[in-house]
């Protein structure tokens, strides 16, 4: 079993047709920073992590429809094949969704960011994907397209269904990530704890956005990565913050509820216990810092 051909479609419709064609599934490819190392393993046993045995590489990295950032319909619309480097440097992302700009800037190294794409970071569905908690905190929606029927949209929180498993149906791809613009800019924080300062995979990554009325919390969204099988929202922490005046004590009290949503594991990077401690500490600090930035 081997990869037999390479296809670079001229447009989205054509890409979806290739994906819907009968026979072995095509391998949806963009930046390659995750997939190429995976393909090397595949050379040994013929299958990818998810059990697929693709024969065709479908390269979406040059599809104009999937590259770039624009405002449309009250949303910031980011093409799935937009690179981390472009997102991290984009003035609208930096101004309107700074948590995403910070998360994109923390992925890998400058070399990786030149190639790695936002869609790839989400579709790989690694629990430690750095952009996932930022986009969860930003209330993002993913737009999916397949050959049949129109595109559909799904809150990102419903996109990750299990460890490295997404809500994508066969023949579907992520075309865009949408962030609602209403109320922006909004105060937020992204934090990443790794084993070193360069090119690190997260031990814990987290992001939050908080809207204040005076000094009272009117809305809060908190996303966490690398502490559960999928990136998660800390809904209990968010609910506990509502209507509260945010002080360091309140932040610490609410952050304790983070354990309701996480189920960290031991691995080569950290122990489950350490991940739990870090998650709580990071959430408390993010809430305090964000509230301070928002003027509490």
């Amino acid at each position, binding site marked *: 079993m*081997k*990869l*037999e*051909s*390479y*296809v*670079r*479609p*001229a447009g989205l419709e*054509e890409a979806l047709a*290739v994906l819907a064609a009968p026979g072995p599934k095509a391998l949806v*490819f963009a930046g*390659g*920073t995750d997939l*190429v*190392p995976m*393909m*090397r393993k595949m*050379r040994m046993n013929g299958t990818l992590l998810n059990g697929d045995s693709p024969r065709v*590489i479908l*390269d979406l*990295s040059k599809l104009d429809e999937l590259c770039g950032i624009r405002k449309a319909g009250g949303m910031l619309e980011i093409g799935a094949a937009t690179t981390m480097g472009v997102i991290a440097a984009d003035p609208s992302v930096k101004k309107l969704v700074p948590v995403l700009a910070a998360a994109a800037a923390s992925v*890998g*190294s*400058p*070399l*990786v960011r*030149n*190639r790695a794409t936002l869609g790839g970071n989400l579709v790989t569905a690694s629990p430690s994907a750095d952009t996932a908690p930022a986009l969860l905190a930003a209330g993002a929606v993913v737009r999916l397209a397949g050959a049949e029927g129109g595109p559909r949209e799904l809150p990102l929180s419903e996109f990750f269904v299990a460890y490295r498993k997404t809500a994508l149906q066969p023949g579907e791809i992520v075309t865009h990530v949408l962030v609602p613009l209403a109320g922006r800019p909004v105060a937020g924080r992204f934090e990443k704890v790794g084993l070193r*300062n*360069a*090119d690190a995979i997260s031990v814990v990554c987290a992001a939050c956005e908080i809207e204040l009325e005076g000094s009272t919390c009117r809305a809060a969204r908190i996303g966490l990565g690398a502490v559960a099988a999928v990136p998660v929202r800390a809904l209990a922490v968010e609910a506990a913050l509502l209507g509260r005046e945010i002080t360091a004590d309140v932040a610490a009290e609410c952050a304790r509820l983070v354990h309701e949503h996480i189920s960290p594991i031991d691995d080569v990077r950290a122990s489950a216990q350490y991940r739990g401690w870090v998650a709580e500490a990071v959430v408390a600090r993010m809430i305090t810092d964000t509230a301070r930035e928002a003027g509490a």
Partner: protein
Amino acid sequence: MLTSCTNAIILTVNGDEHMLVVEPNELLINVLRNELGLTGSKYGCGTGQCGACTVLIDGEPALACVTLAVACDGKEIVTIEGIARPDGGLHPIQEEFLGENAVQCGFCTPGMILMAGDLLKRNPHPTEPEIRHHIKGNICRCTGYNGIVRAIQHAAARMAEPAAADGPDLVKEAR
């Protein structure tokens, strides 16, 4: 649709055009090293973590070990072999690496120099943290980072003076 069954591609490497037939999963690093004999770019980790395979693709630094050769059809590639001056003299960054003894085993050096060039193109006067940030994806297992950073600082100072950069007295002996 560009369906490639034969996967015939054209790569311009250091200014020379090459027609090649490659497997769909062939890596750019292997084509450069094995087909074209350009062994300056190194195959290190193979997973995009070490930066030894750094090349420029259409002017942008990229990891040749996680880049499919077939996806580079029609692109311009520059490797470490392509950055010397037309007369064969070394690039100022290369000279400063020699001058600072910023080369120990040399495995990371081609990637470091290409990343330094990329940084100085965008930011001619980088601070030390900016230099260290830009070479985050390039690992030196000899841990010779201090010399590398100094070499990049010296190169920045020299390259910021256009007259000096083109002068005939550029080539100096390694200390």
